[in-house]
């Protein structure tokens, strides 16, 4: 059956003209890193994004850049800091508006972090909500059920909030709309190895793992010293 015939058949069933309606385009929150925004556009609002990578892969740099970008647009951010590793001084150096940041320290308890994330997302009004599970033992993160991820995704749907989870490896499966995997490329040093050496920054590679499609970028995060 051709398209026209199928359309006519559907119209006889529904009793009226049949028109396709597309979903509205997803609004994106720029990360504030031009290299990433040029390729991925930004972090989708009303959806769950996973930012994954090992230690020193630039996850926190990306997270702080997005927070700074949201703060510059006068939006409020929330950080659910599961392991309590957030450094306010680094955030201030990255341009994060600390007075617009709600910081929730969960003492290493992933269950509490999930509850806190749920409360914040249900409360509404935040432009960016980050659930930082980066230094939480993977055994604890793996115990988070898919139901919990699904609940978070449903809570953030149809809102303008970006929900981002920072992890070592992705755990949310189909609940995540965007998965960014970060890798450490190289550390940048200046000066002679023996003396007067300075850590200048690091180069980070970003790969989009979901939606499927090769998309790579890299950016440099500068050291604060």
């Amino acid at each position, binding site marked *: 059956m051709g398209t026209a015939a199928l359309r006519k058949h559907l119209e006889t069933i529904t009793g009226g003209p049949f028109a396709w309606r597309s979903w509205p385009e997803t609004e994106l929150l720029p990360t504030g890193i031009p290299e990433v925004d040029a390729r991925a556009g930004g972090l989708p609002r009303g959806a769950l994004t996973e930012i994954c990578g090992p230690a020193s892969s*630039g996850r926190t740099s990306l997270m*702080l*850049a997005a927070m*700074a970008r949201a703060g510059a647009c006068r939006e409020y951010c929330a950080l659910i800091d599961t392991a309590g590793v957030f450094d306010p001084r680094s955030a201030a150096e990255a341009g994060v508006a600390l007075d*617009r940041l709600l910081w929730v*320290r969960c003492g290493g308890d992933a269950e509490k972090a999930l509850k806190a994330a749920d409360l914040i997302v249900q409360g509404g009004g935040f432009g960016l909500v980050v659930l930082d599970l980066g230094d939480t033992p993977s055994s604890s993160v793996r115990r988070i059920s898919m139901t919990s991820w699904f609940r978070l995704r449903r809570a953030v749907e149809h809102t303008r909030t970006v929900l981002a989870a920072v992890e070592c490896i992705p755990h949310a499966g189909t609940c995540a709309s965007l998965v960014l995997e970060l890798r450490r490329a190289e*550390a940048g040093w200046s000066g002679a190895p023996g003396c007067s050496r300075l850590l200048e920054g690091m180069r980070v590679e970003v790969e989009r793992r979901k939606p499927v499609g090769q998309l790579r970028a890299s950016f440099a995060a500068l050291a604060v010293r």
Partner: protein
Amino acid sequence: MYGCLHAAEPESAASLVALAQRFSPRVEATAPDTVTLDIAGLELLYGGPHEIAAALARTAARWRIRANIAIASNPDAAICAARGFAGLSLVPAGDEARFLGPLPLEALHPSPEIADLLARWGIRRFRELAALPERGLVERLGPEGVRLHKLARGVFERPLVPLEEPLEFVERLEFDYPVEQLEPLSFLLARMLNTLVARLGSRALATNELRLALKLEGGGAHERVIRMPVPMLDARVFLKLLQLDLEAHPPQAAILGALLEAMPVKPRAAQAGLFIPLAPEPEKLEVTLARLAAVVGEGNVGSPELLDTHRPDAFRMRRFGEAASGAPVACAGPRMALRVFRPARPAQVAVVKDRPVYLRAEGIRGSVAGAAGPWRTSGDWWTQTPWARDEWDVALADGALYRIVREHAGGRWFVEGSYD
């Protein structure tokens, strides 16, 4: 009809208001020694003006108050009569000018200039002023002259300015039996809150502070104060905040009674706009913050504030949303961030030629591929808790970057955090 009580001696003045309030809810404290009251409707209780005046005089005598009492059709005629005539005075309606006529002009308290002018004109009594033509007085003395003329004729009309009772929004409840659990208490608090909110709403007010005082078995008391950053008027929000607060700080004994007080403030006037950025609703945010505090603890929710010191990891938690500045912050581009291990992880570091070459700590192990340092910092040497240390930025062979520190006191090494 209006009555006026004027204290004949200074020691009687203090009780005048209380005496007047025994007869009428509308009482004006005209002067420290004079009160005026609205006696409309009192004839149903006492009879005519004579009987009302007699009742006032009887009560004053019983209270040992020496006061002149006057009754007139308007407040100022009553005041003039009470100040001018001793004992009881009944100013006949429509004949005030004749009744008040013999009074001296000083009873009107004119300004010194006008008093001087009237004295030079030979005007010394009410009746002489009342006899002057009003138009001529306007031309010569202005509006003040007209006011004095009307007062002298006993026809000056003005509304009474009654004393306002202080605005108190307090609900008290004594329980029939001791309440031991929070759930039944919530029902009682809900009832009190509904009444308070209705009373506040009827006066177009809101509140930003709730005080709860619980009377406990054994004579103790449990007091809690809930402060909100913006004025609110939602009984459900208040109840939830009280519930969460009482769950976090439960009373130590059964509850015998409760007193709930709301501090009245003007309600918040906010105009939403199409282009105003996303922000949490204050009412919802308060409940969310209280719930978060119940989950993770009060000190673990808020906004970080950097302290003005070089001491590492120096910050304090501030209440979220308390002082959000409207000014956007300039984006500084991606910066390498430190993830701080709290507490810092004790480490074993092999050092060759004063440089770290191998690092071992909880969850971290490897040879040092690159290192920058030492960054020597110290501070607070003028206090009881001085600190001094050397910081190193190190890259392990697997590429991970850490900040390690060696404390000068004791020479111990720690991994302070990882760069990410």
